[in-house]
């Protein structure tokens, strides 16, 4: 197929060391990490996919509350957040694209006393379970919060606050990763949907697309919800399901919210993202007025100035969720060289995916490095 997209595309290359399936934040971050470490990779990217979780991402680089019951997840999230600025700097350096990452600290804002008490209780439970020193999330009262964010409304009671949280532009991040891969020498970008995959008898893997078959020595499935169909052929499991989150975006506003906040984010452009609804509706990216209105009600109660702003767009994005919400990082026992990487925190974990996780993939030690993220945990739970 004759395509003019990028100098790496259409080069006729049909062999690679590692094939990475998925052009979203997870696949591109892994691919870039592998390329930086010197591997020759082929990235399969289905392109303008409506079920793309990356395009619906809120953009939080968020550690507070993550993995309260699972130290391995808390650790991974914190390690990723810790290297996010160097990840963003390197990408900006390579591509000229600003990821707008800032470690502003993050707030989970309570709009009633009961809510604040609930947050406090969660914090106490977490601190009891782990070394409080490793979790610097703390409760702040209304006064301290008002110093950080003067725009809060009269109903706001306080918040939990973690200085390690931050936010970035997920769309710029995705674009920068694509641009970096496009500029790299040892990458083949294949703008095709992978229909199926198989392990070859003599070793290696074959990936079939409508534009023909490709071969690779190793394969990583990073196609989000698309992993479900591909994984079994490689002796892997990707027990993920879509969970819809509706996101509302407003017109540009004057800057009022610099901090990361779990349901409201003001972007570098001034537009405001509102969200964090959760619905089990399958592959339905639609929106409902009931949910949108409740999102808006909470937002306007938190920041009254939003009532006079206009909603420009509402969309439903599909999170990629495992039964326990934690990642699956696993190498195949049946088909050595095949692995699966899936998570629902594509932005927070992007820096880790481009760093330590990519190195684990290259050294073929995904399962041994991340035993807590084996899909086997679900089989055990079912027994």
């Amino acid at each position, binding site marked *: 197929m004759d395509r003019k997209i990028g100098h790496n595309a259409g080069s006729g290359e049909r062999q690679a060391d590692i094939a990475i399936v998925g052009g979203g934040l997870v696949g591109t971050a892994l691919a870039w990490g592998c390329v930086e470490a010197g591997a020759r990779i082929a990235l399969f990217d289905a392109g303008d996919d409506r079920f793309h979780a990356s395009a619906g991402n809120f953009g939080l680089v968020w550690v507070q509350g993550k993995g309260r019951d699972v130290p391995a997840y808390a650790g991974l999230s914190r390690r990723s957040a810790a290297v996010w600025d160097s990840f963003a700097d390197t990408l900006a350096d390579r591509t000229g694209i600003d990821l707008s990452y800032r470690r502003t600290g993050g707030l*989970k804002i309570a709009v009633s006393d009961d809510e604040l008490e609930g947050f406090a209780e969660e914090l106490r439970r977490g601190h009891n379970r782990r070394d409080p020193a490793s979790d610097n999330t703390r409760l702040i009262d209304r006064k301290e919060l008002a110093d950080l964010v003067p725009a809060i409304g009269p109903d706001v009671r306080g918040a939990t606050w973690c200085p390690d949280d931050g936010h970035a532009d997920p*769309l710029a991040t*995705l674009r920068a990763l*694509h641009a970096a891969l496009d500029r790299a020498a040892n990458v083949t970008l294949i703008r095709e949907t992978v229909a199926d995959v198989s392990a070859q008898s003599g070793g290696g893997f074959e990936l079939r697309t409508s534009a023909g078959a490709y071969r690779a020595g190793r394969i990583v499935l990073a196609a989000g919800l698309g992993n479900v169909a591909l994984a079994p052929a490689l002796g892997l499991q990707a027990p993920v399901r879509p969970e819809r989150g509706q996101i509302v975006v407003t*017109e540009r506003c004057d800057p009022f919210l610099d901090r990361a906040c779990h349901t409201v984010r003001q972007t570098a452009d001034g537009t405001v993202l509102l969200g964090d609804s959760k619905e089990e509706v399958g592959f339905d990216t639609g*929106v409902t007025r009931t949910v949108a209105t*409740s999102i808006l009600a909470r937002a306007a109660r938190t920041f009254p100035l939003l009532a006079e702003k206009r909603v420009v767009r509402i969309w439903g994005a599909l999170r990629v969720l495992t039964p326990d919400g934690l990642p699956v990082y696993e190498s195949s026992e049946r088909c050595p060289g095949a692995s699966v990487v899936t998570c629902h925190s594509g932005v927070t974990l992007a820096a880790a995916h481009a760093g330590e996780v990519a190195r684990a993939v290259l050294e073929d030690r995904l399962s041994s490095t991340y035993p807590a993220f084996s899909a086997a945990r679900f089989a055990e739970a079912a027994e």
Partner: protein
Amino acid sequence: MIDRRSETKNAEIVVIGAGPAGLAAARTAGEAGRTVLVLDEQPAAGGQVWRNAAEVMRRSDALARSYHGAEAALAGLDNDRIDHRPGAVVIDARAEPAGATVTWLTREPDGTRRIEETEAAALIVATGAQERALAFPGAELAGVMGIGGVQTAMKQGGLVPKTPDGAPGLVLAGQGPLLLLTLIQIRALGGRVDAVLDLSEPGAIRRALPHLPSAIAGDPGLMADGARLLAGAIRGGTRRYRHVTHLRADGDDRVEQVRFRSAGREESLPCSILAVHDGVIPNTQVTRLLDLPHEWDEPQQAFRPRVLQDGRVDGLPVWIAGDGAGIAGAGMAGRRGADAGRDAAQTVGGQSVSARSGASPDGLAARRFIDTLYAPLPVTAHADNETLICRCEAVTLTSVRKAIADGGTGPNRVKTFTRCGMGPCQGRMCGNLLTRIIAEETGEAPDTVGALRIRPPLKPVLVADYLASDPAPVPEAVS
């Protein structure tokens, strides 16, 4: 007509749009015994062609000539079964095999707004056409308009461009019958056109000639109208520049002059308004929001929803009537609307009603001739690297091309990469350009490239309007 306060929320058929197609659809369905709710965002029924009909027909002979059939069509609303809501801005619509849900913003007499929603057994989308955007440097400047906008100013406000002698006035640039009609009407109303820049491509007439005999044979009336337009336009003696390339509007805060090349010479003309036109395309905001299948209309260089006979959408109780289903003009729109209304009424009511009009979307005999004569300009014909493709977000042609090179293989990814189409107009002005540019850059067919996804609300809505219409409990915070 039913009082707007008496709730007809359970109308069997919802019609969006009250132009020639929507009016005919509502009338036909109403006469067939069905209850119909007509939602139209304009202040009065008539659509763009019959805008402000009562006033225009009473007061302006020059404009009233384009209002043939308006009176009868508007009288069709006078039916107890039809509830017409002007100023109703549709913000969301969904369709399933069992029916459709439509959400809109009302405008109360006191100026306040309320969100309303209804379910109906059938939905007829008659949202008409919009002008095809033309990308050229300075197109975003205040004072640069569509020629359709000049039409609206004339019809709605009785306004014509007329500056004092010696002061810069109106320059028209583009191609197509609407340009000629506008030129004649402005002069008839005593206005002034300083110059006409003909953007049609050399050779278009030669290419169109083979289709002329069948056009005259099939549509003698329309072709005669066209000939009169052409003769009238030439007779007026307005300065005309042919084979115009490199169109550019210059100015600081608004357009001050237009620059271009004609016959190999660089020209510049001072102007206070530059009105451009490159034909019209279907307005697909509602049909895209409904996620209906669309197909690329190559001669028209635009998407249109894919419909079966009578404008029916396969598998859904949805009909598309008029230019929104593919450009065929106001005359055809009425017939297509009537067919859609009849078929919808029959589907909803379960009984057979009167015969079809015999119209089909391709029924216009002169279409080939007109499409060839006024073939849309290539998408970047007048654009340079810094030309804005998305005016709202100030996204240039170069940025769009870079985003495509960075893996923006479809409009939605280019949108996320550049914000092209994310501004207040929600892609209305840039969507068609974006698909065509990506097709040009990648060599893919526009059907493969696809179009911007359209999300609710179709028009921006104040947060306060959502809250006032549906006070919802504050949900529990989630981590």
